[in-house]
């Protein structure tokens, strides 16, 4: 029970921080909703852990719900790294275009 309370306190802290960042317009609306869903999902996971264990078990998993969540989190992280890599590629292309334009400008 103590662990659940600690987890809830941490999640509430991050939710509060998220709303504070939104009010200060430090993050975009898309980012706000992404993290809001993430922390709310975490809250549901922590509060309804036993029910989720039963649900995960009914789906045929032989591990607890928290472990399934950890596996999913790793998969999501890999996907996000991949997205960042593609974004980086686009930035590199833009950088090269800028470099070419600047090079020609200096030549003129």
């Amino acid at each position: 029970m103590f662990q659940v309370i600690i987890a809830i306190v941490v999640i509430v802290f991050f939710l509060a921080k998220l709303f504070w960042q939104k009010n200060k317009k430090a993050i975009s609306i898309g980012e706000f909703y992404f993290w809001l869903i993430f922390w709310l999902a975490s809250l549901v996971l922590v509060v309804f852990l036993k029910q989720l264990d039963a649900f995960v078990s009914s789906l045929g998993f032989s591990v607890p719900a928290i472990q399934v969540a950890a596996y999913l989190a790793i998969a999501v992280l890999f996907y996000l790294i991949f997205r960042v890599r593609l974004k980086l590629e686009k930035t590199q292309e833009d950088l090269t275009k800028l470099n070419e334009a600047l090079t020609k400008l200096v030549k003129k």
Partner: protein
Amino acid sequence: MQITIIIPAYNEARWIKKVVEEVRAAGFQTVVVDDCSKDETAALAESAGAAVLRHVINRGQGAALRTGTNWALENGAEIVVHFDADGQFRVSDIERLVKPLAAHEAEVVFGSRFLDNTTKLPWSKKNLIMPLARLANKILFDAELTDPQSGFRAFTADVGREIKWRQDRMAHASEILGEITRRRLRVVEVPITVVYHEFGQGFSGGFKILRDIFIKKLS
């Protein structure tokens, strides 16, 4: 006919003056794209009489070739030739590449190290790396040329405006080949001789090229 030789260069102070002097002595307009070298490459190229474009930051050979090609096309080039700065290509081979273009027999000409036996390639490069590169080009781009990574190429101004390569680093050679194959341009290969001062790209270079092609295809 205005023939412009594009020479991308990065830290090539050792060779660039000699290369530029030889190319200019053969009567070609010479453009050196200095890819933000740390040495005297740009100054030496300029002193040898080349038009020098200086990248503000290092972006790789593919990017330097793009800068030089675009600049040449904007400045009236009718034929563009890609050449190396390290003194490994022979200036006398430029005529061989230009001839089929001037005679309208081709739109693109590639120099090939494999059409005669004048180039002494390291064994692993000739028998392992190049066959694998050929296979990769066939699978990825449906391109079939005897020299899968030839950096010595010439094309008409129309082709220069038509083909677009996005690879900034060494994968540009495969990408250009793919672009040319995809557009079904008239291609001719001519024999060239390459005198190696260093080994060049090995297996790790090949993997980097494949990785870059893969990422670029997804982006």
